[in-house]
């Protein structure tokens, strides 16, 4: 199996690694870089659990070879929070109960991130179509839609909306 040396940035850090031609990007990210937040849920590009951003575009990383990401800027769920602050989407998923088992969540957040970058003010229907490549078996999607609406509102207005309560001692 022939090997290639690739250089790419992942969440702003540059990596140079040797990979086999056939190594999938999702395996490279999870196993070579130990970024296990990107998940695998199928083998037919159907579930979206493996979604990450390559040069800003949401990509199903189970259907892309690592060598194809040579020279690219990759963003995974681990890079979404900045300086310890949650991204509005992460906040939205937490506030609005947009996750249960959490397995689809990183892929959902990455798809939603692309959606909001392209369309900061989506309608409910646009949100539903925007995440239609991501399957969730737990939530029934309503609260994911609300989570994305929360993030869109927050990003637009820079203001906080009340959601769930947080207990503190």
């Amino acid at each position, binding site marked *: 199996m022939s090997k290639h040396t690739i250089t790419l940035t992942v969440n702003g850090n540059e990596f140079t690694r040797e990979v086999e031609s056939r190594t999938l990007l999702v395996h490279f990210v999870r196993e070579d870089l130990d970024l296990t*937040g990107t998940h695998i*849920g199928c083998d037919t590009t159907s579930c979206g659990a493996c979604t990450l951003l390559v040069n800003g575009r949401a990509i199903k990383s189970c259907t892309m070879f690592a060598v194809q990401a040579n020279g690219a800027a990759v963003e995974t769920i681990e890079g979404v929070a900045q300086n310890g602050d949650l991204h509005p989407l992460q906040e939205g998923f937490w506030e609005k109960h947009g996750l*249960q088992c*959490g397995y689809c969540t990183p892929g959902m957040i990455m798809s939603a991130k692309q959606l909001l970058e392209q369309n900061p003010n989506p309608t409910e229907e646009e949100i*539903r179509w925007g995440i239609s490549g991501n399957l969730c078996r*737990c939530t029934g*999607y309503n*609260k994911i839609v609300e989570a994305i609406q929360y993030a869109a509102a927050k990003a637009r207005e820079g203001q906080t909306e009340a959601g769930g*309560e947080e207990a503190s*001692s």
Partner: protein
Amino acid sequence: MSHLDDRFEHHTPKPEGASAKVDLVDEVQIKTPPEICGMGHRMKRKEDPRFIQGKGNYVDDVKLPGMLYMDIVRSPYAHARIVSIDDSEALATEGVVAVIKGQDLEAAGGLHWMPTLMSDTQMVLPIDKVVYYAQEVCAVVATDRYIAADAIEKIFVEYEPLEPVVDPHEAMKDKVIVREDKEQKTNHIWHWEAGDKEATDRVFSEAAHVVEQTMHIPRLHVSSIETCGMVANYNKATEHMQIYMTSQAPHAHRTVFALVSGLPEHKIQIISPDIGGGFGGKVPVYPGYVCCAVASLVTGKPVKWIEDRSENLQADSFARDYHITAEMAADADGMITGLRVKTLSDCGAADAAANPSKFPAGLYSICTGSYDMQAAHIEVDGVYTTKPPGGVAYRCSFRVTEAVHMIERVTDIMAAELGQDPAELRRKNFIREFPYKSPTGWEYDSGNYEAALDKAMETIGYAELRREQAEKRARGELMGIGISSFTEVVGAGPSRDYDILGIKMFDSAEIRIHPTGKAIARFGTKSQGQGHETTYAQIIAEELGLPAADVQVEEGDTDTAPYGLGTYASRSTPTAGAAGAMAARKIKAKAKKIAAYLLEVGEDDLEWNVDRFQVKGSPEQAKTIQDIAFAAYTNHPPGMEAGLEATDYYDPPNLTFPFGTYICVVDIDKGTGEVKVRRFVAIDDCGHIINPMVVEGQVHGGLTMGLAPALFEEIVYDENGQNLSGTFADYLLPTAVESPKWETGHTITPSPHHPLGAKGIGESPTVGAPPAIVNAVVDALSHLGVKHIEIPITPEKVWKLLREAGVTD
């Protein structure tokens, strides 16, 4: 604490003992302030920060030094003799460490067969023949997952194909015998009955109206987005087997592993880490798990096995596959008098259902549902076919979905026969007195079915919808309204009746309060997304006044958590949740003694107030739970043991019976036959609510898993027994686009026997939703003579009906 007074106004006294008469309250009860966050608060989930940042720890995330990878060779035939297996080329490949075959398992102590949870047996790896498509044939262990996958292609298995038997009715004829290993050469596995046959036959002979319907509840797959997998790590020096496993029941699995493998149970540690959805699919022990553990035993190295999606859909346990014939009898006044049901249960190649041992057809006999009737008789026969074994829940309490689908469908068929509105027929026949003894022997704990029906009808605007439907029908448009007033039965269960492989179905909690007033609580269950880390903490906050944020909840590690039977069948709140409350009450009893000592008063002079014991009549004299915790380690009363902790193994006195009414409105496209769910109102009653936000989430998710089989999902086999639904491109999970905006609400009828008055919610919507949708579609087409449609209701099926009726061409 005066600011809390107004909160107590909403407090309904907890029902006690056998008194089952409880008033209806719709308002969620809150007794603690937000900083404590006991029951009723919409507390944000404690588990979420790790998940939203990609820091969950699922089985495939586990990486151990020197870890090997396992992959599996699977059968391309549904039924075939194995002539030979040639693994020489695979073994000669660099990086391939071992190939494990049936003979190897046999030599290792008869591990080529394993017991199922239903006291049947199932092959781990075959020696003579395979009995289903995609059956595990042998396993390859390699240094890399790609090498293992390559090696699969280098193993040459010669098969001699045998005739498959795919249809269970055919299987009953015993022309092809699936299990030649059995002494009895028949595919018939068991016959099971409930109710009174004679009384039922009598009711039917006297009935003014009888309706009959056959229906098939097709094979489904739970399809959690995470598939199943394991990392087994056997240390030859310490003889310790550490296993990371996608397990909904890690303690029971440890016992099963010990019994099957002969390894001593204290040398086996099962860790069920974060689980990416279970829905029943992670209850059984699959052959892959056994092979993976054996691979680690043999190599002395950690071995990882993660199924891919096709393997998961093709070989893991299915759900449903019930072929039902149901008859309902009613008198001249439209009062339902009896139910007679015969059912064929297609078990596949082994009875590997995940039911309590004494219940081969699960809790199917709950099928008289929400209606009071004189008599019922239910018969179920289990049969082998050359399909994967199983019979798991798909987010349901042991076959209750099949039961509810059947009763809610025939009730609508009876309404059509009587020319009555389906809502009114239901109302007229509802059970009204609780506790209620059903004709098949259940004792329903509490209910208020009419309240849920009324609320659902009012929320959706039922009368207005019926007017709209009449207008639309006059214009030739197709619109339907469907109702389902279901009764669930969850929380298995009382030890007198419920066990799995002899282990009683209690569950457990252990709470330890640290000197600074923080706590760790461990449970015998295992969350797969249900939010136990939050809701269990809220239960403890409710009982002890410790802020829920200060309670660390842990589950899933058999070395540390108390023994329990796990999470499925909506049993966590009814059993482990109750254990948590009972353990907290034990702690509270000790805390009272410590408070009395510290305040120098008698215990009788003290009263509990949210988070403290105070002296009656002088509340300023008080000791908070934190004060008491500190004293338990620093200044405990002479003669008393130090520390503040308790364990409870809770054996529920009865099951709980959540219920609700769902109403669905559909519009049908005449040209394509496509069904669109326009509105769906779900009114649920699960007793007292621990976290309304989590309950809503459970209901939304459950409804979507009810929509799925009604309109989309089915595992299909061709006549050769080949699975035609082996990918997500063929087995269609609803996306955000197909899922409607669910409208939810609740009534609250506490369980009289549960310490918190709670009942469990995760599965009601999966159980209740499908018949509401089917009833709506049939209602939309009833004027065309349509009485019943089998699920999934695909556009093609509807389009054919429309064409037959001359509505479309």
